[in-house]
């Protein structure tokens, strides 16, 4: 079973980083986006399990 893909969207880079660091220990494939438009573009490519 492949890694779960998670997309993290927030306009604050510090908060994105915080979430990333929290989730690093889990076995996830993490992606970030700073705004909604970019998030939708990424979603189409990576098909995250959780946003």
């Amino acid at each position: 079973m492949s890694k779960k893909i998670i997309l993290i969207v927030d306009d604050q880079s510090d908060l994105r980083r915080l979430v990333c660091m929290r989730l690093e220990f889990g076995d996830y494939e993490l992606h970030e986006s700073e705004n909604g438009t970019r998030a939708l573009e990424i979603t189409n490519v990576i098909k995250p399990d959780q946003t």
Partner: protein
Amino acid sequence: MLKNSEDQLNTNKEKDKQADELTRATTELAFQNKEKEKLADKLILANEEKEKKANELVRANTELAFQSNEKDKRTDELVTANKELALQSKLDSYRTKRVRVAEELTIFIDTANAPIFGVDADGHVNQWNQKSAEITGFQPDEVMGKNLVEEFITAEYRESVNDVFQKALKGDETANFELPIYTKNNNLVMVLLNATTRRDANGDVVGVVGVGQDITELDSYRSKMEAKVKERTRELDTILTLSPDGFVLVNADNIIAYINPALLNMMGLQAGMFIGKSAAIFSDAMTSLYNSELMENTSLIGDEDNERLIYLSYPIVRVLHCNIKTMYAVTGVKEGQVLYFRDVTHETEIDKMKSEFLSTAAHELRTPLASIYGFSELLMNREYDKKMSHEIFETIHRQSVNLKRLLDELLDLSRIEARAGKSFHMVQQSLKELLNESCAEAEGAFNGRKIEVQSSEYWPLLSFDIDKMRQVFNNLFSNAFKYSPKNENVILKKSQREKNGSIQFGVSIVDNGIGMDPQQLLHIGERFYRADESGLVPGTGLGLSLVKEIMAIHAGDIEFISAKNKGMAVTIWLPIVSTKLSDKEL
């Protein structure tokens, strides 16, 4: 036979004796008869006497009756005489009374606390009481026999007074006629007059009596009251005209009596459409302006007093607070209604802004706090290498600084707003010194980046609070540096302009950074508004709000010229006190 003879003799003797006796008896009888006759005669005589006496009695009785009749007659006469006598005395007392009444009347008229005067059929004064003399200053001997109308009445009233007298002379009396009379020293007194017809004993009209009442004081009081009412009306008119609130007055017949300019302005309509028309027309006009999404088309004018909010879409979006109150007369009768409208659009907006501000502020405060909270929690629960933990500490510190700045600026803003400039210490000097310091500070803070000053050494005298203006420049310089490329400088320009009759000194700070599009420019200066949403550039979104507030208190202006990715030019304008430098700086 002897014996018989003797007997016979005896018998004869006896017979003779008897005869004698009979004769004697007869004689006796005759005598007795005679006596009887004599007695009868006597009786007849007595009877005759009696009759005579009876006749005399009848005569006496008749006489007596006659006499008593006569007595009655006398008594009647006496009664009549008495009656006449009583009448006579009554008449006498009546006459005395009348004389007394007449005397009393004369005294009464003369001393009455009201002017009473009389004129004869030709209009000449024939009575003039003390009060008339007192009021007018003319003594009776000065007016008696003179023509009242011609000599004592003001010209414009002569005709009407004459009318009243002529009418009274025809028996047609006038009550409560206001009559101005000239006094001896040419003052005008106002007399309220009742003109009464005067008749002689035969009922023929001989003149007119005027009974008056000095209403000069009353009249002047009335004039004063009228003037007061007029003044009050004018005051109220002025107030209602100037009032920014709307008023409509509806009278008891539901007709619009007044509508003030403020309300017409709110409705974008003309007074002529409503004055004198039915209240329903006004109500319909108002409902046609309603925001149909927020309002039902209910009539404004009902029987009951009420208060409500009215949301209008036309002519512009407005919120009106409407208060309807019924006016009652002292008697409790409904006199009409007052409709009062207050434009609460601004208050409603402020209310909305306040709650928006609170939720934005809470959100903005939560963002740095979330980082601080989250990262410190990570540090507590996990082991990181030195480099990593240093990075985390740095983040926590940076976000703490952010939080502190946010709170500082919020406090600054609220302080400035609450005191509306009262805590400002205004000094008169030029901006030269302050700008030099601010430039150096900003250049230092942004690692050797430069501020290029692009204008002459022109420094007019201005009035400002040094610390507050330092805050303005710090904010503007740091914005210019933060939102422009790291290798580029910021340009400083000075200028001068005239606005609304005052000369202003301008300082422009121009960068070549990300700029703002027109949509973003609309929001510039709003609390927490940031054109850059990336979060890469530190900031609170409060800096320009603060700058705007400070400039407003300095009676200055702030202008932004920008386009997306074409940089930003911010110019602040301060009124020039004098084009000369202050003594200190010369």
